[in-house]
C-alpha cells in the first residue's frame, strides 16, 4: 500500500516538474494578485492584510487543486484503476495537494512580505499558522476536485461547492492568525483553536478516504 502511494505521489511530482507551465501559471496568478493588492492599498492595516492573505490563499487553492483530478483523462483513470486501489489513489492525491499548497502558501507569504509591509508581530508563528491553514484548504478541496471532475465540470463548480464548505475552517484560521499580529488570547483559546482545526483536518481526511471509492468506480 505504502509503495503504491509513494509511486503515485512520485508520478504526480514528476509530472509537475516536467510540465512546469502549470506551476508557473499559478505562481504568476499569485504574484499578479498580490501586486494588484499593493497597487490598490499601499500599506493595508493588519486585519485587512490578514483577510486579504487568506482570501488569496482560497483562490490559489481552487486554481492549484482543480487540475489534480481534471488533468486525469478517462483512459488514464482506467489505467490507475487497474494498478492501484481507490484509497491509495486518494491518499497520494491528498499528500501531493498538501505539498503543492504548502509551497504556494509559503511563496505567496514571501511575496506578501516583499511587496506589502510586514505588520506581523510574530512572523514565525504566522508561518506555522499558514502551514496549518494551507493543509486544511488543500484537504477540503481535494475531495471537491474529485466530485467536480466526476461531474465533468470545470473549476467553477468546485468553487461553488467549496466556498461555503471551507468557511468554518477559514474563519477559524483567520481567527487564529490574529495571534501573530499581537492580539492576546484568553488562556487555552490558542490551543483550543489549533486542536479544532486539526480535528477538522482529520475528519476531512477520514471522509475523503471513505467517500472517494464511491466516486472512483463507474
Amino acid at each position, binding site marked *: 500500500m505504502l509503495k503504491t502511494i509513494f509511486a503515485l505521489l512520485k508520478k504526480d511530482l514528476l509530472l509537475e516538474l516536467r510540465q512546469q507551465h502549470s506551476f508557473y501559471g499559478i505562481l504568476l496568478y499569485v504574484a499578479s494578485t498580490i501586486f494588484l493588492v499593493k497597487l490598490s492599498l499601499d500599506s493595508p492595516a493588519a486585519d485587512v492584510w490578514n483577510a486579504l492573505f487568506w482570501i488569496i490563499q482560497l483562490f490559489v487553492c481552487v486554481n492549484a487543486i482543480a487540475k489534480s483530478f481534471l488533468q486525469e483523462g478517462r483512459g488514464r483513470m482506467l489505467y490507475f484503476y487497474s494498478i492501484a486501489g481507490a484509497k491509495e489513489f486518494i491518499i497520494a492525491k491528498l499528500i501531493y495537494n498538501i505539498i503543492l499548497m504548502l509551497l504556494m502558501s509559503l511563496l505567496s507569504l514571501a511575496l506578501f512580505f516583499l511587496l506589502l509591509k510586514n505588520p506581523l508581530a510574530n512572523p514565525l508563528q504566522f508561518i506555522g499558522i499558514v502551514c496549518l491553514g494551507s493543509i486544511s484548504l488543500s484537504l477540503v478541496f481535494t475531495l471537491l476536485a474529485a466530485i467536480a471532475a*466526476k461531474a465533468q465540470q470545470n473549476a467553477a*463548480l468546485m468553487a461553488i*461547492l467549496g466556498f461555503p464548505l471551507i468557511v468554518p475552517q477559514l*474563519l477559524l484560521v483567520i481567527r487564529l492568525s490574529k495571534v501573530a499580529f499581537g492580539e492576546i488570547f484568553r488562556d487555552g483559546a490558542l490551543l483550543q483553536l489549533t486542536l479544532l482545526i486539526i480535528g477538522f483536518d482529520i475528519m476531512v481526511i477520514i471522509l475523503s478516504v471513505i467517500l472517494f471509492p*464511491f466516486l472512483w468506480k463507474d
Partner: protein
Amino acid sequence: MRKSWWKILAVILLVYTFTAGFLIKVPNVGNLKETIRNLFFHVPMWFSQLILLGISLVYSIRYLRNPNLKYDIYAEAFAKTGILMGVLGLVTGSIWATYTWGEPWSNDPKQIAVVIALLIYFAYLVLRNAVPDIDKRAKVSAVYNIFAYFIYVPLIMILPRLVESLHPGGKGVEGNPGLNGADLDATMRVVFWPAVIGWALLGTWISTLSIRIYLIRDKNLINAE
C-alpha cells in the same frame, strides 16, 4: 388510519402550538416581552431542519451502500424540505431580531452560520442540476451530501460556542447554541417540545408528498432497474 396517525398527530400538535402558543401566560424576560412566543416557531424550525437533513444524510448513505434510485429521490426531497425549514427559521429569526435586537441582521455568528449552511445546501442543488446523467448525479450528490453534513454539524454546533453571540448559549454561557434548555420556563416547555415534534412531522409530511411526485415522474427510470 394505521399509516396516517402521524399526520393527524402533526395537525393536532400544530393546532395546539398555534392556540396554546398564543394564549398561555409567558414569563416576562427582559426586552423579549411577548415576542418570546416566537420560540414556538423559530426554534422548532432549526430542530426540524437538522432532523430533515439528517434523514437526507441517511438516505445518501443508503444509496451508496445500495444504488437504488429511490434512495436518491428520498435524499433530494428531504434536503429540499430541510432548506425550506432553514429559510423559514431565518425569516422568523429576522422578524424576532427586528423587535429584540433592533435590526433584522446584526452579523451575529449564528446568523452567519445558518446562511453558510443554506449556501452549502444550495450548492448541493446546483451540483444535482449540473450532472445530466442520472446514476452519476445520484452518486456524486450522495457523496457531496455526506461530506457537507459532516462539515455543517460542527459549523453550527462548535463554532457558535466559541464566539460571543446575541443568541442564548454563546461563549461563556451554558446551554446549547440554539436555546438554553435549563432555564426554559415550565409552562413554555409544555408548548415548546410538542411544537418541535409537530413541525418536524409536518416537514416529513411535506417531504413524503414531494417524494410521491418524484416517484411518479421517474416511474419509468425506477422500474427499468
